C-alpha cells in the first residue's frame, strides 16, 4: 500500500496523474485540464460579478447605516446567503430559462465547439454562485465600513470639510477593504463546494461535474486527481490572500504580523 502511494506521489510530482479506471486506458491528464479550464472560466466570471457588486452594495449599506437602503441590502444579503447554490440556481432557471427563455436550462457545449462560442451558458451558473457569495461579502463589507466610518480619522476628515465622496473612497474604503479581502479568501472553499453543486445542477462540463461522475463510477484515481487539484488551488488562493493582506496593510508587512 505504501509502495503504491509512493508510486502515485512520484507520478504526481512529474505531472502524471495516472489513468482513469472507469474509462479504461484514458490518461487523466487528457480529460482533466480541459474541464479545469471550463471551471476556471465559470469561477472567474462569478468572481468578477460578485466581488465588485458585493463590495459596492456593502459600502452603500454601511454608509447609509440604519436607513431603508441598508435594511434592503442587509435582508437581501441574509436571504441569498441562506440559500444553497442549487436552490437559487433552480429559482434562476425557472425565471430566466423556463419563463423568459433567455438562457438555456442546461449548460452543455455542443460537440466540436469550444466554451467561448457558447458563452451564454456561463451566465446562469455564475449568477447562482454570485448570489451566495454576495450575502457573505456584502455583510462583511457593511460591518467593516460602519466600523471605519465611526472611527476618529474619518470624523476628522469630514470635519475638515472634505467632500463626502472623497472621504468614503479615499479614507474609509482603504481600511474597510481589509477584512473583506480575508473573507473572500476564506470563502474560496465554499466557492469550490458551490462549483461542484452548480455544475451538477446545470450539467456544466467543468471540474465539479467531473468529480461527481468520478464518485458515481467509483473512479478512485480520477477522484484523487480532482481532490488534489481542488486542495492545491484552495491552498494557493489562501496564500495569495495572505500575501495581498500584508501588501495592503503595511502594519503587518513591517512587524511580521501578530499571531
Amino acid at each position, binding site marked *: 500500500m505504501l509502495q503504491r502511494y509512493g508510486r502515485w506521489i512520484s507520478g504526481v510530482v512529474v505531472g502524471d496523474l495516472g489513468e482513469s479506471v472507469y474509462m479504461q486506458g484514458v490518461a487523466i491528464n487528457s480529460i482533466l485540464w480541459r474541464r479545469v479550464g471550463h471551471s476556471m472560466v465559470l469561477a472567474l466570471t462569478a468572481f468578477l460579478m460578485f466581488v465588485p457588486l458585493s463590495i459596492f452594495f456593502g459600502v452603500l449599506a454601511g454608509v447609509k447605516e440604519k436607513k431603508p437602503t441598508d435594511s434592503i441590502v442587509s435582508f437581501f444579503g*441574509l*436571504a441569498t*446567503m*441562506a*440559500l*444553497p*447554490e*442549487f*436552490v437559487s440556481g*433552480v*429559482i434562476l*432557471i*425557472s425565471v430566466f430559462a*423556463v419563463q423568459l427563455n433567455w438562457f438555456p*436550462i442546461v449548460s452543455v457545449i455542443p460537440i466540436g465547439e469550444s466554451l467561448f462560442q457558447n458563452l451564454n451558458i456561463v451566465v446562469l451558473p455564475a449568477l447562482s454562485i454570485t448570489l451566495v457569495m454576495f450575502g457573505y461579502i456584502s455583510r462583511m463589507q457593511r460591518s467593516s465600513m460602519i466600523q471605519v466610518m465611526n472611527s476618529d480619522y474619518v470624523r476628522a476628515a469630514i470635519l475638515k470639510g472634505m467632500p463626502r465622496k472623497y472621504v468614503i473612497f479615499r479614507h474609509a474604503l482603504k481600511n474597510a477593504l481589509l477584512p473583506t479581502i480575508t473573507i473572500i479568501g476564506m470563502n474560496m*472553499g*465554499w466557492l*469550490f*463546494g*458551490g462549483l*461542484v*453543486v452548480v455544475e*451538477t*445542477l446545470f450539467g456544466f462540463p467543468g471540474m465539479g461535474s467531473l*468529480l*461527481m461522475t468520478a*464518485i*458515481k463510477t*467509483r473512479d*478512485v484515481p480520477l*477522484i484523487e486527481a480532482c*481532490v488534489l487539484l*481542488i*486542495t492545491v488551488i*484552495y*491552498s494557493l488562493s489562501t496564500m495569495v490572500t495572505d500575501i495581498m493582506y500584508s501588501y495592503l496593510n503595511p502594519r503587518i508587512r513591517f512587524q511580521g504580523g501578530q499571531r
Partner: protein
Amino acid sequence: MKYVLYQLKKHPLAIVGIIIIIFWLIAAFFGPSMVPFTHTQMDSEHQMVGPGTNGHVLGTDSLGRDLLARIVYGSRSILTVALMTSIVSTIIGVLLGFSAGYFGGRIDAAFLRSMDILMAIPPLVLSMVVLGILGDSSILSLTLIVSIAFVPATARVSRGVLLTEKSQEYVSAARIRGENHLYIMFVEILPNTTGPIIVEATARFAYSIMMVASLGFLGVGMQPPTPDWGMMVIENKPIIAQAPGAVLFPALAIASLVIAISIFSDFVSKVLIHER
C-alpha cells in the same frame, strides 16, 4: 426570561424565524399522520399535476407521488441529521479545542496543524468524496462525516473562547486549589463559555441543513426511498418546464428553514453575547 421577551419585542424578525422553525418541527413530528398520502404512494392517474388536483395539495412529481407528503417526510430526516450534526460537531469541537487551548504548547501546535490539513479540503468536497467512496449514506454515517467536516470550525471557536477565559483569576484559583485538569476545563471554564458555543452550534445547524441538502442534491445523501429535499430538486429537474412546483416547493422548504435558522441564530447571538 423577561430579558429574552424584551429582546424578542425589539427584533420582530426573530419571531418570524422562530414561528417557521416551530412549523417545521410540528411538520416533522405530526405531519406524516396528517397528510392524506405517504411518501412512496404513487397516483398513476395524476402525474406531474399542479397544486390542488385530486387532493394533492402541492401537486405530484413524475411518478405521481404526492409532493406535500414527500416534503413532510423529508423534513424528518433532514432535521434529525442536521440537529445531530450540530450537536456532535460542537461536542467534538469543544473537546478538541478545549484540550488544545488548555494544555497549549506542542499539543496546541499539533492540533492547529491537523486542523489546517482538514481545512485544506472544502467541507462539502470532503464529505461528498468520503460518502461517495463509502457508498453508504445512512443517517449515522451522514451525521458522522458531516460532523467531522465541521470540526475544524467548531474546534477553533472553542479554542478561541477558552483562550480568553484561561487567563482569568478564577482559573488560577482552581489550579492552586489543586483541582484536576478535567474539572477546571469542564466545570470551571465551560459554564462561562456557553454563550459563544451555543451561538456557534445554532449557526452550525443552519450550515448542516445546507450541507445535507446539497449532499442529497448531489445524490450522495439520504438514499431512496427516504425522501430528501435536495434529492427531490435534482430528481424533478427534468420536468421543471411541465411541473415547476415539483422543483420549487422542496427548494422553498430548504430556503425557509435555513433562513429561519439563520435569523434565529443571529437573535441568539444578540441575546447571549451582548448580554454582558
